[in-house]
């Protein structure tokens, strides 16, 4: 073989792009199926598992593309001002069929504030975090937003077992520190921390924080945006 100079990351990226769009179609069909067969499917464990895994793959692929663009220095935060309660309820809406199906209760507890962020990038982070919370929670999910120390803090809380000790107090993650044996969770945290760090205002930079507790007593994911 002579083709040693294949730009493999580009080949991967375009394949990922294609898979992501395919999964999008698949998820659409699942949504339709759920609507059409509400009675038989809504609480079927297999069906909910199918949807959860499809969502998870879709999120992973979106993330992968984001990380690819990050590596190409091709990802720039396009910050604008957004009304936070509206933004959060739009984010949650995508997950409500599955949440309802699994019998997980959900609430939004947001101050009536506006914040400055790139909505596309933050959508990627929140989809992933919510999806992750769906996996680890027992019965409840809570989205929060508040202003603290001049930062906008968006939180995703659950009532599961919480994050293991080793993952808590995450400061800035570098790509090297990502433990790929940890699967998509570590990659997700790297992505979230990179997106947070792209939000700057003067000297202040965004970050993510993980701890346990919160109102629901489980894991708490927070993204702090200046």
């Amino acid at each position: 073989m002579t083709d040693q100079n294949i730009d493999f990351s580009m080949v991967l990226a375009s394949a990922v792009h294609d898979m992501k769009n395919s999964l999008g179609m698949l998820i659409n069909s699942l949504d339709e199926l759920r609507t059409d067969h509400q009675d038989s499917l809504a609480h079927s464990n297999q069906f909910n598992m199918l949807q959860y895994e499809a969502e998870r793959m879709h999120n992973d692929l979106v993330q992968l593309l984001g990380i690819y663009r990050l590596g190409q220095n091709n990802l720039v935060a396009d910050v604008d001002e957004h009304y936070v309660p509206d933004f959060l309820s739009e984010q949650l809406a995508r997950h409500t069929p599955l949440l309802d199906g699994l019998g997980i209760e959900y609430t939004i507890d947001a101050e009536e504030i506006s914040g400055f962020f790139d909505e596309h990038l933050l959508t990627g982070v929140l989809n992933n975090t919510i999806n992750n919370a769906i996996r680890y929670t027992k019965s409840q999910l809570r989205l929060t937003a508040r202003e603290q120390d001049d930062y906008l803090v968006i939180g995703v809380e659950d009532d599961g077992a919480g994050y293991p000790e080793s993952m808590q107090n995450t400061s800035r993650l570098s790509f090297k520190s990502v433990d790929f044996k940890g699967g998509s969770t570590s990659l997700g945290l790297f992505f979230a921390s990179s997106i947070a760090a792209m939000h700057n205002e003067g000297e202040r930079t965004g970050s993510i924080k993980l701890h346990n507790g919160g109102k629901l007593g489980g894991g708490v994911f927070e993204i702090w945006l200046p």
Partner: protein
Amino acid sequence: MMRSDQTELANPFGKLTFLVVDDFENFRLSMRQMLRSCGAEKIELVAHATPAVQYCSYNHVDVVLCDYNLGEGKNGQHILEELRHKKLLKRSSLFLMVTAETSKEMVMGAREYQPDAYLTKPINRAVLEKRLGSLIRQRHALLPINREIDHENYPKAISLCLEMLPKQPRYKTWLMKTMGELYIQVGDLAHAQKVYDDVLAQRELSWARLGRCKVLLGNRHFDEATSELRGLIEKHPDYMEAYDLLAETLEKQGKVPQAQRVLEKAAEHSPNALLRQRHLAEVAGANQDMDTASEAWRQTVSLGTYSIHDDPEHYLSLAQSLSDLSEGDLEEEGAQRAEEALNVLSKMERRFPEDESLPLRSKIVQSRVQAGQGNDKQARKLLKDASAEIESFKELPADIGLDYAKTLFRMGEDQKAKDLLGELATQFENEPDVLQKIEGLLDEPVGFRQKIKARGLNREGIKAFEQGDLDTAITTFENALAVVPDHAALNLNLVQVLLKKSEQETNKADLLNACQKRLARLESLPEQHRQYRRYIALSQKLKGLTA
């Protein structure tokens, strides 16, 4: 559960008319299903652009949900442009682009027309209800303002924005953006600047920085605008509007080569914006960079296939630039370009059969192309046909006249060309743009390569003159005039150097004689020419010296 603020609109979907555009029947049907379950009643489904535009021509539509990728033919962006351009969609209507893309690449396409929102697939009912619901509520809240804007009652719209600002904090971004644009529209730059500065004082937002630069440009603070725009582009390399505005600023300063570089960079990032390619083509043409110009015209023509901005002028400009490039180039490349020019012209005539001036305009260019390839007989025949048609005009339109004169020069009919340009100068004496083109043609009725050569020599001559090296200046200007013998400024430059030289010589006769000959070349210079006064002044000075 979730807090609800739907009190003001019981069923926000109910009274509105929806149009769904998607080439997949399944998606159309599922979208209808979802809209219905949200409470919508009037929903129209179409698969492609043509029926979409047609439906909007005859029906009022409040919300368009349009898939970006519609297979072969026009895409969602084309539909958006067509609807907005033909004013088939009011400002108070919503256009939502549905895409599978999470990145913002498509946003970079157009500069004038952007959808009200993007919906990213997959979309379920809950997402649609939330997203569309809040857009509809926003539309409802902002309707009084948009209605005034639709009626072009801008001052009233501004005062409504000011009233709403403290009451509706969630629409602050929209209100501030809109106010800035409206103040610029009514020419109140001071207030526009205040809007943008207020936003920027709180946070560095790119739209506000761009708005501020528009104000700076309006106030002719070019350097400040240039440096702020360069900073903006460095931070946001995919913010296309910043490139466009920077190019415009540089052009206004006369820095046309720099403007071209900025547009080239923008076209690299976002090659599918027709208007930007056209702008690049025009700027490159002004810079005599015919290779770049013809490539940008080629892109403009190709992007026009499905665009509302398609225009026969693009085809003509492409053919003209190819004609310039191929002229006198009898190698394979020249022949290929000549052939492409002829193909483009015939494609244009077929595509725009209703424009009656095109066959003539096409012949004028064809004749030049044939002449440039040494096909004299064909060139003559085409010119003869064109002349007959030209004579039937009572008042020749400027663009036809100019291009015809260019062909006349190429065919060696210089006197006829000059007479025609003289007539045109009188006819268009109040139109500086036309006059400038007439001057350009009178001065340099040659191909662009010779133009570039003559311009270079002119600069060298001026430099030598400034350094006091009169002999070099004289030789250099003479060399330039060998290329473009009727160039007004060049002839006058030479006369000036010769007069200066004659001051140092005892035997002045030869030098003054040479001046006389130079000035005689300009006898038919139209009064409207910018060099005319200088010509008269130097003629009188010479008269005084020879009397």
